[in-house]
């Protein structure tokens, strides 16, 4: 490995760490996601400071030049990373889908409750609004067990048990 290559690798490692640090600082990157890139830069740094490692591995694997080994190694690493990123993206897509569906269901539920209130304020439980099984409520919910601070208006729309108490 030439000195020039070593210097290039060291600069690359430092550059990578700098970008990761900037990402974290500006709240654009989670620490868990940055771990891979930090370890990769450490690896690059080690390889550039101790080129004997690359030379030894290249000889074992039968490469003509150490730099070929470095190419293949990093290609494999990137391939793996790419695969995991695809997997992660799939999971995120799934989560977004879940969220969108839940929001839509909640909107319908909310709208139907409002409707039933508007048409008949004295009527409390509207069975037609309970399309989603998870929003089933027993008619005699114990409101007294909820130690709210005395605020009648619960601004948290996701807590259905307390928001229905406004209707009563």
């Amino acid at each position: 490995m030439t000195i020039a290559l070593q210097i290039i690798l060291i600069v690359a490692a430092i550059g990578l760490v700098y970008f990761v640090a900037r990402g974290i600082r500006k709240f654009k990157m989670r620490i868990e996601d940055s771990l891979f890139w930090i370890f990769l830069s450490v690896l690059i740094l080690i390889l550039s400071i101790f080129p004997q490692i690359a030379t030894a591995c290249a000889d074992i694997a039968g490469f003509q030049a150490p730099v070929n080994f470095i190419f293949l190694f990093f290609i494999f690493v990137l391939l793996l990373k790419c695969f995991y990123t695809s997997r992660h993206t799939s999971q995120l897509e799934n989560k977004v889908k879940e969220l969108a569906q839940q929001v839509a269901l909640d909107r319908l539920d909310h709208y139907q409750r409002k409707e039933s209130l508007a048409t008949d304020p004295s009527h409390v439980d509207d069975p037609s609004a309970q399309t989603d099984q998870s929003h089933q409520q027993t008619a005699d919910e114990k409101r007294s067990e909820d130690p709210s601070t005395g605020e009648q208006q619960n601004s948290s729309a996701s807590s259905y048990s307390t928001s229905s108490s406004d209707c009563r």
Partner: protein
Amino acid sequence: MRPTIKTLLIIPAYNEAENIERVVDELISDYPSYDYLIVNDGSRDGTAEICRKRGYRFLDLPINLGLAGAFQAGIKYAQRNAYDCAIQFDADGQHRPEYLDALVSAMSDNDIVIGSRFVTEAKPKSMRMLGNNIVSDMIRLTCGKRINDPTSGMRAYNASMIKELAFGPNLGPEPDTLAYLMRKRHARVAEVQVSMEERIAGTSYLDFTGSILYMLRMACSVLFIQFFR
């Protein structure tokens, strides 16, 4: 005993159907002066249904976010409702509510109060405490302050800390956040001796690979990343 400041107990819950009623009923009956908020983290065992049926106050996350996301949701609620103090309280019964008053009273001249198992009691030098010891040493190295039980989940945060924690990706209820808040936000941290129960039912948030990743993340974050956050 009535707390003098408006306090919220944030109770993150993931698949705690077996424990949640026992834990919350005790809070309601014996500690009514504390507000609570369960945060259901996308449980699949009927935890949400139990909360709804019993009329507990809870946030129902539509997907699983993990402890950090669930806790932060509770923090957002605390901020919106102008709570002076938010305390993380486990849904599995390991945290004991007897110590809540002690935590709250220590908030008078601290920003963060940790319910620590090892203030007056000695920390055992076992494998189980290995992670705890390592993190404790790392924090002492970088922040200069000795925290005996940095992985304890029973922590109280005051209003300014609540504001810090409410937004952003890297502010989960973990020791590296403590280190960051101490260094960059000059948080005053104190520990109060508590005792904790062993988990009775259900499974913990972390498994083996989770623990390894956790330690790696803590090491990176406390020893390295926090210096340029």
